């Protein structure tokens, strides 16, 4: 067992656990986007950032990729962490404003305005589709192309893939292109319809236990019902 400090609490974790796993185990909430329990860790969305270390050497790391170490000092919710997470959300929102998952996260973090030029790309390059195709479907039909601002996800040579079985796993797991935000002006801006729900109803509440006693106002549960 490895013991270390998380949010000033002494915690112990199995060797090989990540900070994120440990946090989850102890009920500490860390937002994630590119993490999925069934896939390898990627560390691309930078939402699960936590602060490790103390004093001037303290730094931010992605908790999903950082293995726990003896004597580590972790803070999951410092101002620095929240600020960086919000900026990551703002960046993702500016490229994929239609994503319900990102819009929900934005609301959760109280992000009310977005300062970059919107670019509706429907992809935040989290790599979930690439990983599920490879690791769970054993197909490797899609992958990343190019780098930096030219990055995109596609099949080799952009040609129809022979190994793709059209299983749809990539679409199922996509946080950006599958479930669209139906709120006001979500295509260009921040919808914030869920902002009034605190904590947001998404994970914690169903229709009967709606926080606002006003089920349906934010639109989330309406969609759920429609299924």
């Amino acid at each position, binding site marked *: 067992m490895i013991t270390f400090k998380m949010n000033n609490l002494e915690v112990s974790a199995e060797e090989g656990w990540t900070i994120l796993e440990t946090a989850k185990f102890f009920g500490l909430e860390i937002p994630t986007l590119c993490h999925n329990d069934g896939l390898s860790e990627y*560390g691309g969305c*930078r939402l699960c950032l936590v602060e490790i270390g103390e004093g001037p050497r303290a730094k*931010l790391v992605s908790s999903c990729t950082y293995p726990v170490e003896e004597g580590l000092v972790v803070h999951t919710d410092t101002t620095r962490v929240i600020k960086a997470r919000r900026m990551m959300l703002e*960046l993702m929102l500016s490229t994929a404003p239609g994503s319900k998952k990102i819009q929900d996260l934005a609301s959760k973090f109280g992000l009310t305005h977005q300062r970059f030029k919107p670019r509706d790309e429907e992809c935040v390059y989290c*790599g979930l589709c690439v990983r599920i195709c490879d690791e769970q479907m054993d197909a490797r039909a899609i992958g990343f192309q190019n*780098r*930096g601002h030219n990055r995109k996800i596609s099949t080799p040579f952009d040609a129809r893939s022979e190994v793709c079985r059209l299983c749809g796993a990539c679409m199922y797991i996509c946080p950006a292109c599958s479930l669209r935000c139906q709120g006001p002006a979500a295509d260009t801006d921040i919808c914030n319809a869920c902002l009034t729900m605190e904590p947001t109803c998404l994970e914690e509440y169903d229709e009967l236990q709606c926080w606002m006693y006003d089920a349906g106002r934010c639109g989330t549960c309406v969609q759920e019902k429609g299924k």
Partner: protein
Amino acid sequence: MKTPAKIKTVKALEKVIQTQQRLRKADKRQVLTVSAGTCGQARGSLKVIDALNASIKKAKLQQKVKVRVTGCHGFCEAEPNIIIHPHDLFYQKVAPTHAEAIIGQTIKQKKTLPNLLYKDPVTGKTASREQAIPFYKKQQRIVLGDNALIDPTEIDDYFAVGGYGALIKALTSMTPEKVIGEVKASGLRGRGGAGFPTGVKWELARRQKDATKYIICNADEGDPGAYMDRSLLEGNPHRVLEGMMIGAYAIGATEGYIYVRDEYPLAVKHVTLAIEKLKKLGLVGTNILGAGFSFEFHIAKGAGAFVCGEETAMIASIEGRVGEPRQRPPFPAVKGLFGKPTIINNVETWGTVPLIINKGAKWFAKIGTDGSKGTKIFSLVGKINNTGLVEVPMGISLREIIYDIGGGIPGGKKFKAVQTGGPSGGCLPKSKLDLPIDYESLTKAGSIMGSGGMIVMDEKTCMVDIAKYFLNFLRDESCGKCVSCREGTQRMWEIVRDISEGKGKEGDIELLEELAQAVKDASMCGLGQTAANPVLSTLRYFKDEFEAHLKDKRCPAGVCINLIRYFVLPEKCTGCLACKKSCPTDAIQGVLKGVHIIDLAKCIKCGACLEACKFEAVETQRDEAIVIMEGAK
């Protein structure tokens, strides 16, 4: 004596080294050392060599004169240059047409050719010897110096300067732990940029129990304007290989990779030749020199991705995966290439190791400052008189490098900033000129040591434009894994581009600052964590320029083309027609000896007229002159 076919024992190698050293001493021939690194070749040194050989043949001096083709001597401004031994004459900017005179007069009649001597652009004084040239005076060329003594394709030349002596010393009289102890005591820190203590890293790898370990030489030098690793690998490949072998012995590695970018064909060629030669002599393979140490070299050629200079991305690239960094820990020293402990060091770091083993940690630790030991090679480029590679002791001030070694700014212009550390570094202003160069003080000032790029900028450089340039480089070179780096560099570039085009909005600077901080904080690897430096440092020291672009829609340096207008100063214009002839769009009207006028509607702001004008009559951005122009309409 010829070097034997195989060198199987320590004694045999010692003998070879001694013989080569003796042979060189006994060689009374005059030597013409021609620098022919990539830079020299670009300036025509190969033709000079041909011409020299032809002249020697013509004068029938083959037995008395030898032409040694070496790597870079560092003084790029003077390329192609020749050093003549034993007189130590330094001839600069030699052309093939000079060959006859060099052989006929200097070699035969021992007469100096004054037109080929170095002439100080400031004082006008000439210097005949290398050490008399201000460019070399303040340098301490312990790593690069041997470049001028060695033909990089000849291992015998390396033996002649005592090469592979450090390997013998390490293998015969030192335990691996002692080698690591020596490197630790020397205070050597990684020359690739981050400055991690080399010995500490080696120790970590040494402690791993794995039977297979690797070492990697990082020659993926991708900073614009930096080429010190290329020059060392081209000019003295055996020095780097020797360093790697010592490192491998110290940590217990059996295989080493040299990750070199394919854009360095000469470096690839020379290092390949060097490895082949070692193989032929039996100096790599199993049980080297009978000392029980086995080692193999491999060359991995990179395709030019800047991010592959990052340790974990480089490992991924060698393994055949996409060059993307991963989270550290586990550090490569614990779990690196193919999952085995791996030590990655920069070319210069490996090249310094043999020196430390040869001359001792104490000698090395005497050079430099408390925290940063030894010398560092910088590539001094940009708006500077003496462009070139300079090797200086740590702790020297920027002013000494730029003014004493670099010879100041050409054209009598004023110094504005110096950019250190490549695209991930920062721009330091005039007030930081007396900053001593070491890892900590550069970081504190908002820049980094980096691998040693040093770009000097004069008053005609626009800092917004510079920030835009580096951001453009970084948004291309970011691997794109992290949102912070991929989107962050893209968005920072967009904001700075808008500002430079006069489309900036209120709040842009604040947003830029906030975003830059987030990119620095949130990114996974070194590229992302330093990607904000060009923005943060220019904003820190040159905020007024950003504000001028944003608020007044004015580019003070006259660079950003959306914000400037070209015009002719009537009081200075002589009516020579030079600018008119240079204009590609016929935008300049005027007759001989009459003041010219630039038609702003036709002008594409290419700057050709500014270059063409000999009377400084073409200007950009001067408010009263614009009034004159508009009044004339």
